Structures are given as structure tokens and as C-alpha cells.
């Protein structure tokens, strides 16, 4: 009995010890167990191109963000389209803050970390570094042109708050970065940075050089009323270094793919049937008998079986009320959908519409920017303003495959003017100017702005920024406003996006400081620094 007792005691001790030893010595695999094998933990040279592709994809507004970052706001405020869905209030000037965050947050969380990793892992004199700088400026120019002051100089620094910076200082940094990039690119014309991972030019440095100069020129015109001297200097330097000259060769379009939900955002959302051609677009395109009309929009009732639909193109005014939208004439089925390259076959579009490359920056814009610069008496090259204006139109038509000389020349010399669209509100013609170059400078500026607006399609972000900056373009007043900050829609319009609700929660003190940089209340009616109208 006693022996059993001792044996048992021995067993107890042994077991207890065994358990202890077992449990404490086996944690050596814990780090391995706690590592997700499907993720990348360390970044080396072979990972860098994938970071650059990502930054490009998001900076140019990718599929997941397109509707809520661009289409419901800039595209409507530029009046490329009018909203036909009753449940979206943005066309009636009400901004849903949880949606518009898509134009802000992804730039910081999906562009900044990738670019900062690239900055940290490449030499400042390398073309990879230079291209990263260009994408940085492209991405942030879209953000600051929505909000004005934004977190910029300390973006990407972990902490509980990130300060906002004045738009003036941000633009200064844009030009500094672009200038630095141009110097590096000029010295590396033979390099192939990122190769096929560069989704815009496949690593063609000479094209990137033209792109960078055109972007610099665009930003220079943006500040032409806020800082004319700097604007002129930057613009002239850009033109001297060589901007885009020829469409489609020089044009920047980013590849999109159905793989990984990386399709063309406009094409994806066209299936949702929530927007149609605006009355402004209809008035101009139909009035000018513009050959781009059938490219930009589809005839009413187009289907796969009947791509010609009823042969008519109809649009509707921006800002119709829910009740107005339920009227037969305003239904989606009775208005023109966006063009075939962005729509699915069911609407008369093309089969691979989701892979339609997305417009980023094109040659036509470079000519319109130079034409306006010429009227400001800047040194924009040897061509006259008229020649630049007409070259802009020629390049825009070429961009969409319209190159027949007679079609181009008859359009350029056309004296036709916008028409009354015959819409639900019996709207008059949106403007009275023709295409053919006018004699007076005021009309010329309006013509340049109008043709640039037509050429920028479907880039509503740039079109809305240019509209606010110049105010030369004429658009219809928004039919109804549900935003009490805008009472008179003929004189008041959305000029910026207010600071995000979520920012006031998580970055509150910084937002309070930012309000002081605005020069007005934190409202949609407060103009940005470069908006001197």
C-alpha cells in the first residue's frame, strides 16, 4: 500500500513537471504561427514595382472609389451628367460626408504609404523616385482642389493628429517636386523605371517628361489668379521643357483590368443606371453637332439588339427633385447613357467595357492651357492663341478617333451655337458662343474653357476645378437646392467640399486649425485659395 502511495506521488510529480516543461518550452514556433503566410512582411527591390502600380491605380481614382469620390460630386458639379436616382442628394447640393471621404482617405492610406516606401527605398536621383514624386503631386492636387487646406507636409506620419496645411504652401511644394522630377527625368531619358508595372507609359521616360510638364502647366494655370507671377514662371518653364504635343501618342491613360476589381470605375458604375447625360452637355454637343456626341453618349433606348436606340440623344437638368425625377421624361430609360466604351452590351456598349483605359491627362488639354496662357501674354511658344485653340480641338477629336480632315475643319469653323435641349424645364440654350474663334478676348476665353471642358470628358475632377477657377464656362443653374447654404442657384454653387465629419471626430484639433486657413466658414460656398471669382 505504501509503495503504491509513493509510486503515485512520483507519477504526480513527473506528470506535473512534464506538463510544465511541455508548456513552457514550446513557444519557439509562436512567431511563425503568428505570421500570416499569405502576406508580405519585408519589402525588397522586387516588391517596389507593385507598390508603384498600386499608387498609380488609386491616385487616378480606382474602381472602388470612383462613384463616391468623383461621380456623385465632381462629375455632377462639372455637369457632365445629371443624377437620375432619387436617393442621391448630391446633385441637389447636399454632400454626404461618409461618401465623399473616398476622395480623401484612400489617397492617404493607399497612395502615401506606397510612395513613402518608394522614397525610402530609392535614390532621389533615380527616375523611380521622380515618377513617385509625379504621382504624389497628381494625387494630392485632386485632394486639395476638393477641400483646400489638407494634411500634407506631415502626411504619413503616425500619431494621433496630423495638421492641415495652407493650399498656397501645398502648391509651392507641388511645383518644387515637379521641378525636381523634371531635372531627374531629363537626365535619365534612356531609363525604363518600373517597366511594365508603370500602368500609364510602361516606363517611357520621354513621355513622362511631357506628362510632368503638362501637369506643371495645368497647376500653373490653376493659380493664375492667385499668384500670377509664379503661375507665369512655372507655365513658361513647363512649355520650354516640352509639354504633350500629339494625341493619342502622348496621352496618359491608365490600364484597367477586370482582375482584382480594378476595372474602369465609370464602366462599372454605368450598370447601376443612376446617371444620364446632363442638359448642359446636350445643349453644347447637339448645338455644335459635335462629332464626339456619339462617343460620349448613347442614343436613348440603345440595347445590344438595337444599338441605335431611337436615334435621339436626351439629357436632363442637374438637381431635379425626387418628384420631378419620377416623371416619364426624366426617367433613365428616356435619357442618354454614357458612351459605348463605358457601358455593358445590354445598354449597347462594348463587351470589355470594364477594361477601357481610364483618362488621366491628354494632349488636347496642353493646347488649351497654352492658348489661355497666350491670352495672358505668357511665352507659350510660337503659335497664336487661335492656332493653339484649334490644335486643342483637333487633338481632342483625334483622341476619340475622329481625324477625317473635312469633319475636323468644318467643326472648327462652325458658327453653330448651343441649342435649347427641350427638356422637362424647357431650358434655354446654355450659352450663345460658337466653336469658331471669336474676335474678342472675353469670348475667346469662354471658348477655350468650353472646348477644354468638352475635351476633358470624362475627367470631372479636373473639369470642376477648372470651372471654379476660371468661371468662363457657362452651365445651367442647379434646378433645386436642398442645401440651405446655397439659396440662389444662379449666383451660388458648390465651390469646395467641407471638412470630413470623420476628420472632425478623429483629427478634431487639426480641423479647427484648418478652418482658420480657409478665409471663410467651413461651407461649400467658401472659395479656395486659387478661386478668385
Amino acid at each position: 500500500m505504501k509503495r503504491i502511495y509513493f509510486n503515485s506521488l512520483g507519477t504526480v510529480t513527473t506528470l506535473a513537471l512534464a506538463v510544465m516543461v511541455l508548456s513552457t518550452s514550446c513557444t519557439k514556433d509562436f512567431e511563425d504561427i503568428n505570421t500570416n503566410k499569405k502576406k508580405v512582411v519585408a519589402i525588397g527591390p522586387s516588391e517596389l514595382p507593385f507598390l508603384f502600380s498600386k499608387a498609380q491605380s488609386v491616385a487616378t481614382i480606382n474602381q472602388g472609389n470612383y462613384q463616391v469620390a468623383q461621380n456623385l460630386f465632381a462629375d455632377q458639379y462639372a455637369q457632365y451628367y445629371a443624377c437620375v436616382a432619387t436617393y442621391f442628394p448630391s446633385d441637389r447640393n447636399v454632400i454626404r460626408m461618409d461618401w465623399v471621404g473616398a476622395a480623401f482617405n484612400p489617397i492617404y492610406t493607399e497612395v502615401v504609404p506606397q510612395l513613402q516606401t518608394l522614397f525610402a527605398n530609392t535614390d532621389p536621383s533615380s527616375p523611380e523616385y521622380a515618377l513617385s514624386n509625379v504621382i504624389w503631386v497628381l494625387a494630392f492636387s485632386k485632394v486639395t482642389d476638393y477641400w483646400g487646406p489638407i494634411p500634407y507636409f506631415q502626411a504619413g506620419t503616425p500619431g494621433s493628429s496630423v495638421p492641415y496645411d495652407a493650399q498656397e504652401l501645398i502648391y509651392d511644394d507641388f511645383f518644387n517636386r515637379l521641378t525636381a522630377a523634371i531635372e531627374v527625368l531629363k537626365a535619365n531619358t534612356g531609363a525604363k523605371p518600373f517597366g511594365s508595372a508603370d500602368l500609364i507609359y510602361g516606363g517611357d521616360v520621354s513621355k513622362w517628361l511631357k506628362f510632368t510638364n503638362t501637369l506643371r502647366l495645368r497647376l500653373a494655370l490653376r493659380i493664375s489668379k492667385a499668384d500670377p507671377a509664379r503661375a507665369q514662371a512655372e507655365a513658361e518653364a513647363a512649355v520650354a521643357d516640352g509639354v504633350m504635343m500629339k494625341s493619342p501618342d502622348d496621352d496618359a491613360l491608365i490600364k484597367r483590368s477586370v482582375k482584382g476589381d480594378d476595372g474602369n470605375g465609370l464602366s462599372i458604375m454605368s450598370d447601376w443606371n443612376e446617371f444620364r447625360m446632363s442638359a448642359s452637355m446636350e445643349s453644347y454637343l447637339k448645338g455644335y453637332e459635335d462629332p464626339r456626341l456619339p462617343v460620349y453618349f448613347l442614343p436613348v433606348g440603345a440595347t445590344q439588339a438595337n444599338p441605335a436606340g431611337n436615334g435621339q440623344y436626351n439629357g436632363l437638368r442637374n438637381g431635379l427633385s425626387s418628384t420631378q425625377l419620377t416623371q416619364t421624361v426624366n426617367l433613365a430609360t428616356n435619357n442618354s447613357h454614357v458612351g459605348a466604351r463605358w457601358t455593358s452590351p445590354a445598354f449597347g456598349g462594348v463587351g470589355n467595357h470594364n477594361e477601357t483605359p481610364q483618362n488621366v491627362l491628354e494632349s488636347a488639354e496642353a493646347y488649351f492651357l497654352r492658348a489661355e496662357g497666350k491670352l495672358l501674354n505668357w511665352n507659350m511658344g510660337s503659335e497664336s492663341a487661335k492656332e493653339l485653340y484649334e490644335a486643342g480641338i483637333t487633338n481632342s477629336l483625334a483622341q476619340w478617333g475622329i481625324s477625317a480632315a473635312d469633319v475636323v475643319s468644318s467643326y472648327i469653323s462652325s458658327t453653330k451655337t448651343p441649342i435649347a435641349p427641350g427638356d422637362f424645364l424647357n431650358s434655354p440654350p446654355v450659352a450663345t458662343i460658337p466653336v469658331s474663334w471669336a474676335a474678342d478676348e472675353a469670348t475667346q476665353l469662354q471658348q477655350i474653357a468650353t472646348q477644354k471642358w468638352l475635351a476633358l470628358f470624362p475627367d470631372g475632377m479636373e473639369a470642376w476645378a477648372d470651372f471654379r477657377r476660371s468661371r468662363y464656362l457657362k452651365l445651367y443653374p442647379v434646378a433645386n437646392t436642398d442645401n440651405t447654404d446655397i439659396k440662389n442657384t444662379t449666383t451660388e454653387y458648390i465651390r469646395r467640399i467641407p471638412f470630413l465629419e470623420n476628420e472632425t471626430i478623429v483629427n478634431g484639433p487639426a480641423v479647427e486649425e484648418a478652418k482658420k486657413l480657409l478665409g471663410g466658414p467651413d461651407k461649400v460656398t467658401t472659395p479656395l485659395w486659387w478661386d478668385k471669382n
Partner: protein
Amino acid sequence: MKSTIAFSCLFLCMLGSVFAQNARTVTGKVTSLKDKSGIPGVSVVVKGSSQAVVSNADGVFSINLPQTRTVLEISSVGFTTQQVTVGPSQTSISVSLEENSEQMGEVVVTALGITREAKTLVYAAQTVKPATLTEVRDPNNVLNSLTGKVANAVITQGSGGPGSGARIVMRGNRSIQGSNNALIVVDGVPITNGTNSTATSDFGSVQSSDGASNINPDDIESMTVLRGASAAALYGSQAGNGVIVITTKKGQKGKLSVFLNSGIAFEKPFALPRFQNKYGQGNGGTRQDTLTSGESWGAAMNGESAINHLGESTTYSSQPDNVKDFFRTGTTLNNSIGISGGSDKMQTYLSYANSAIQGIVPKNNLMRHTVNLRLSNQISSKFSTDAKVTYISQDIDNRPRTGEENAPVIDIYQIPRNVPLATAKQYETVEGGIPTPTAWPSTLSSIYQNPYWVINRTAINETRDRVIGFLSAKYQIAPWLDVTGRANLDRVFDRTETQYSAGTILWASQAGGYYQRSTITTTQKWFDLILNGQNDITNDLTIGYHVGGIFQDNRFDQLDAIANGLNITNKFSIDYATSPRIEGTAESQQTQSVFGQLNLSFKDFLFLDASLRNDWTSPLPTPYSFQYPSVGISAIISDMVRLPTLFSFLKASVNYAEVGNGGRPAIRNSTYTYAQGAGSGFLTRDATLPIPGLKPEIVKNIEVNLDAKFLANRLGLTLSFYKSNSTNQLLRIGLPTATGYSDKYINAGDIRNTGFEVVVNGTPVQNDQFTWDLTLNFATNKNKIIRLSEDLKETQLAGGYGRSATPQVKEGGSYGDLIGLGWARSTKGGYQVTAAGIPVATTDRIYLGNFNPKSTLGFSNSFTYGRFGLRILIDGRIGGTMVSGTEMNLAFSGIPEATGDYREAGSLNLNGQDADGNPISATTTAQDFWQIASGKRYGVAEFFSYDMTNFRVRELSFGYDIPTKADNSKFIKKARISFVARNLFWLYRGSSKLDIPMIGTRKMWFDPDMSLGNGNFQGIEYGALPSTRTLGANLQLTF
């Protein structure tokens, strides 16, 4: 096995023949007073003689009674002995014995499968009789059958049809980003009970199966619910949410029994929206019965001839049943067979169960097979083993999606009030073998579509194979010491196939259609080794102890093959993908633990429990270690002091316990995720800032219990008070995205739950023929968010910004406060309207209520009269708010009953005020009013908030024990047939909270038990499946 049957038969024959020769034979049956079951092995002695027999397995005996004797003495261990006088001409008697707790204490199975006498427990434990789970079944999930039976448990049912995961929360919610579901332990081992997909917002989801829905209720031998974390200090991890301890059946020695349970049940929707049936398609009172309008704001329907949206001639008339008739009668067939038998050395239990369920949504079917084999071996006098293999094969077809996108429920609710179902059934045209959806008059062609297209041309099919292997071995080292080891391997293979035919709105965005196949493998390995001992230190003091170690390893691996676009239209296989995409996620965690538990017992009336556990878990930073203790004391006052005779038992206990949770895997380091895209794809840095210094979460609990029995145990009362604080919660909080991160993890917070529970058991009537038993449980829980963190004062639960309402957690508030837009009030407190008399919504979201009930109640009554038994369970929830997103959505389209009034211009005067409180007398119409209130998809939640207080007859069963020959000569030993019902009718239900002038309040039409999913997104109903009323029959046979 064969010999056992032969032996049993022989034995039965002998019984019959031996006693047949006597002149006066009295047969009888001894049953337990408590549950009416026959008591085997009862000693029946003729008083004053040596003649005695023992009752058989069913409590039946037969005894020869000499003419001079009339009294039988009937006794059994655990029961009060009774003397029965047999009348002169009586030949059969029936005797009910009363249980005697003094003699045999109730035994419960606690943590790690350790069996304890209930009276020694220092914490609250409640047992649930398996019979109440198998007779009236919930076809979807066994957890749903616990509703009303467990004090302070709030059970919400998944809305994904048969087999969907349920949510069971005990003593309130305590985790913000983790699970609040109780831990489920089967045979000492926690089971994998995750849900692969659950809704995290009112956009909806597909609610998939949880682990609990795989449990075959027929295999359950006992179920103990440990409500407090205290009881579960030995389980670590999610034991803070309470534990449900399930023990499954084992083979029994010496006899072979066959159990058969067959059930059939029919289900019908129980809570459908109430519709207006006066006005049809159109707008502003004008008929538009084509595709122009899907809304029902048209003219009154008077049977006019009309052209429908298909271009057919029809009449414009009311279709009051066009929603009701969409749902079919669900049917459930359950069949299970269990065979138990064995020798002294080896016992076997083998069961097979089969469930065939047709859900109420057409084409939604479930088929489940469960095979369970258990072998228990006594290898030597000291060494025994117990092994079990369970295999579950489950197929679910056409699981319905909740929410509004491709969701059949919201799609059928939207049907215009004049469109007959027969018209809706013309949902497609087929050309060249390719179906194309026909036009459908829905309000938003980009979101809604014909529900018949959804059920016929889209599918979400789930297949699950689950294998659980269990082995336990016990070695009796000494009479007072044994060592037990267990190994449990649980592997779940899930395969989900998603198919969207070309033409499906939203989901088939590429040519040819969409197909996805997901393969998910979930594995849990569990090994433990425990040394159990018990010694008498003195005559009065006994010490018991458990020392052991546990190794737990969990792996999750998911692989998705996605074909967005198919080269051959509607060929649903990854082979046909236009551009196949493969994605995967993986997660693993390992925890190693050592623990010790000490139980001291003094004079069998004073007990002290203490435990300490140390975990090493892989998600934590080195040294990966943390520990948590528990201590409790209980005293049986009735054994310590002399109490008035009214008391037959009185016990008090108090305990304190901590439970730790080691956090989440792989969040300590920064990682980059690869995704396909243009070019060769992308690398993206993950947007959550890692937490290198991750700390374990700790739940601290204190609990006081009082247990009393009165009137010779006829009445029992249990009272529990508790307080728990969840601290160091792992929270994910928003960062300014300008930091490059959208959010970060922090350990912070303090969430307090306090409450009390009352459980009353009683037997108001008890005599030979009639017994009435009742059980009442009532509980109340109060939750308070004491603190979140310096950086975070409020956070949204689950998916963030809701379209109807959003559940949130805010410092100073309660878990699950719902916020949403409200009806703005004027400075004088009146309802604010515009100059046109239309309501004005608040600009900020307001507090609407909280999604948790304040109190819960369950009241069960069982009546037994002879062979008849009737059981009624009534349960209720008091308090709590739920927002009906469904009604919000439908109100925009003039579909709900309330939208049928005040359609004439000038008929609706809300008597509102402007912002400054000046009265506005302008009138409006129902359409303008409801469209502003609803906004269709983004609405003013206050108009659709309901008080979810409700009481209902939850379960009803009426059973009859079919007479079987008392002499056991028949093959069938026991037979019971019962008619059962679930969700029979409402006794009371709450109303909409806002009393709208002229319109008033509306009675809650939906069932708040149905949730969008079993995660923390609760309190909002949006396109959830209607709950069902079940009627059925059940047959139990024992051979």
C-alpha cells in the same frame, strides 16, 4: 451484441413465467414524481415477508402478493421510501416516488468535463433537459431551442434559413470587436463555433452556419449552462461570455436499447409586413401600371382593365396575398436512431440522425446526416478509454441573402400591390438556352429585381463536411487519484458556391455571369492532461484538486476562386472564367496552458474553490504569457444551522473570477497584401496600425447566489446577482487617415454588466394522476460603458454607418445604443415641419434606444395527467428597441398598411411647428410624408423604431405515452407521440415608438428574434427572413 439480445429476451421470459404461477399477482409501475419516467432497480418488498422483486428498466414490476398481506414497501436510492396498500381487488398499481436530494445530490458536468455535485458549486449553473430540445425542435439551430429556458440568455436567430448561425448572449454584451457568443463545450472540449459570413451592416449578407447548428440534439445526454465567467475560468479565451456544457450519450452496460425519434414539422411565416391593398402602381394617385413606376402610390384599384409591365392585358386589382403566397410551407423531417449497449468491459453508442429541411423560401433546402460512434472501454480495473467519432455531412442549397441586394425577401415585399404572383413568375425569357430577366417594375432597377429570378437564376450553396475525433483515457493511479488525457480533433471543410447568371443586377457585372467557389478549412486540435485527486485530510475536511495542461491549436484557411465573367454564359465552374482570380486568407493561433484547481470541502456543507491558470498564446508579444485566478465559497446553511421547517435546503455562495483572452493573431507587425489588378498586380500596406505591445483582455466577475428549497423540495428558488467588468479590450479605433493608417488597435475600456436572475421551480399539484410542474426564470441586465479610451469616446459596432440606424458604444452609454436620424423638434418641443407641412429630419443622428432587452422572462408549465403530458413555454423580452429598415424601405413605395391612409391632397395635417415653435397648418399627403420619412434607402430611423417588448407562446407540446405491455413481452418498450408547436402566437408585442399625429403608432409586425446575423451588428432588421410558426408531430420509440 447478439448474445446480449438473446440474454435479455431470456431474462424477460423468465420474469413472466416465474411469477405467473401465483394466485394474486400485482403488477405495477414506479415512476419518478418529477419527470414521470420509470425508475429502474426499485426494490419492491411485501411488508412483513421476505418476498421482494426489483423493477425493470422501465420501472415495471410484478409481484406475488399473499392473501394475508396488503402493503408493499417501495424504495430506491435517491427517493423517499413509500408504503402502498393494495386494495382487495386491485391487480395493478402505479407509484410515484419523490426524489430526495438529501440522499442523492444533483450532479452537473462543469468545466473540462469535471463532474460535480450541484450543491458544492460556488457559481450559478442551470441544467436544461435534453427532452425539451428534442421534442419541440427548432429546425434551424439547436441553440434557438434554448430561448426562454435559460435565465438571462438572449438568443437571436440567424436569418439565413435552415442551419444559419444563432447568437446567444448571456448576462449582456461585453466585447466590442470580439464575439459575445457563449462558448460551447462538448464532452469537455470547446467546439469550433465560428460563422464564416455574417452581416456587419444593413446592407445584409449571407448568414452562414455556425458550429452549434451541427450538434444533433438527440445525442445530448445533458446540458449545463454556466452563465457567469466564473464557472469558466478554466477555459480561457471566450469563456468570459458564459459556457454551455454539453455531454453526449455513451453506451450503457448490460442492456441493448434502441432509441428512435421521428419528427415532422411544418413552418409558415409568422411575421410578415402588413400591406395596404387599396392602391396600386403609380404616383401621386395616378395609375402607371407599366414599367414607369414600381411604387404603389397609384389610383385606387377597382378591377379596371390594364396593360401590365409585360405588355399583357390584365386587371388593375388588389392582390392581398401576393407576398404571403410567395413563401412555401417549410417542412422538416427529422429521423434519428440511437443504439446503446455493451458489456462490463465495453460499451457502444451508435447514432445516425438525418434532417431534411425545406425552408420557407422556395428552393432553399438543407440535408444533414450525422453519424456518431462512441466506444467506452474498461481495459483494466485501472485503465479506461472513451473514444468518439462524429461525422457530419450537410448540404444547404440556395441560402437566401438578407438586406436588399439580390435578397429574395426584400424583392418580394416590393411587389406592387396590383401585380399577381403569376405575373411575377414570368421572370425570364430564354433565347438560345440563355435566360434574360424580363423587365420588373421595381423602384430601382439597379438594386432590386424579380425575386423569382433571384431564387431560380442565382444560388448560394453551402456544403460542409465535419469530422470530430475524440479520445480520452483515464488511469486510476490510486483510489484517490487518477490521470485523464484527452485528444480532440475537429476539422470543418466548408465549400461555398456562389452563382449569378448573366443578367443578374449588381452581381454579374461581367459578360457570362459570375461564379465563386470558396473553400474554408477550420481545424482545432486540443490535447489536455489532467491529474485529479481527492483526499480526506480529517474526517471533516476533504481536499480535491485538478492539475493539468492544455494545448490548443486553431487554424483557419480560406481559398476563394472567383470567376467574374464566364467564357461560356452561365457555365458555373472556375474552368470557364474569363479571368480567374484566386485569393486566400489564413490565420492560426496556438495556446498552451497550465492550471490548477483546488476544492476544499468542510463537513460537506462548506466549500471553497480556487483556481489559477497560466496561458502562453501566440498572438501576444514574448513571453506570450498571462494568468488569471478564481476563488469562490459556498455554504449549505440548511446543514449548518437549524432552519424553520419551511426550508428544506438553503445555500449561499459567492465567487470572484477573471478570464483572459489573448487577443487576435497577426496584428503585431506591419504587413502588405497582394491583390490582382492591372499589370502584375498590387502590393498595399495594410491600413491598420499594428500593436506590438498587445495585451490580453481580462473580464473580472463577481457573483453572489442564493439557492433555497421549500416545502419538502416542492418549491425551489435560485437568486443570482452579478457584476462583470471587461477591461483591456482589444479595440480598433479610427485614426486620422493622414497618418497613412485608417485605424489602430488599442487595449482599453471598461464595460460593466450588472444584473440579477431568479429561477423558480415548483410543483403546485402532485398526486397519483395529475402533476403540474412549473419553471419560471426572470433576469435583468444593465450595461454601462464606463470608459473606452483617451482617444476614443465612441465607436460603431460592426460595419459602421448604417442606412437606417447604427448600433454604437459610447462612454457613459450602454452597449448597443442605436443612433439614427430623428424627427426634428421645434424650440417648443413640437414636431418640426416645413412650410409645406412635411416633416423635417434632424441633421445629426439622435439616440433611438438600445437593442438589448432590459429583462428577459421564461415561464414553462408541464402538466401530466396519466399518460398525457402538456408543456407550454411562454417567454418574453421587456424593453429594447429595434429599427425596421424593411418598413423604411417599403414606406417609400407606398406598400405598408400605414401608407394606405391620407392619400388625398390636404388630408394629412401633422399639426407641426416651424423651428421656432409657431404652428404650421399646411397639409400634406401620405406620399410626401412617407417618402421624406423613408428616403427609400437612407431614411429617418425614428419613424421606424419599435419597442421590441414581446411575450409569446414559444413552445407547446402535447404528448401521450402509448401503453406498452407492462410485462415487457412486447418488442417496443416505450412509445410516446407528441404534437408540438413553436412560435404559436403573440401574447403581447410592442409598437412603433413615435406617436405620429393622425397616423398614431403601429404594432410591431416583425419578430425581433430574427437578426441579420450573429455578430455584434444587432437592433436593425432589413430584409430579414420572416420568422416562422412551426407545427409538427414527434414520435419516440424505445426498443
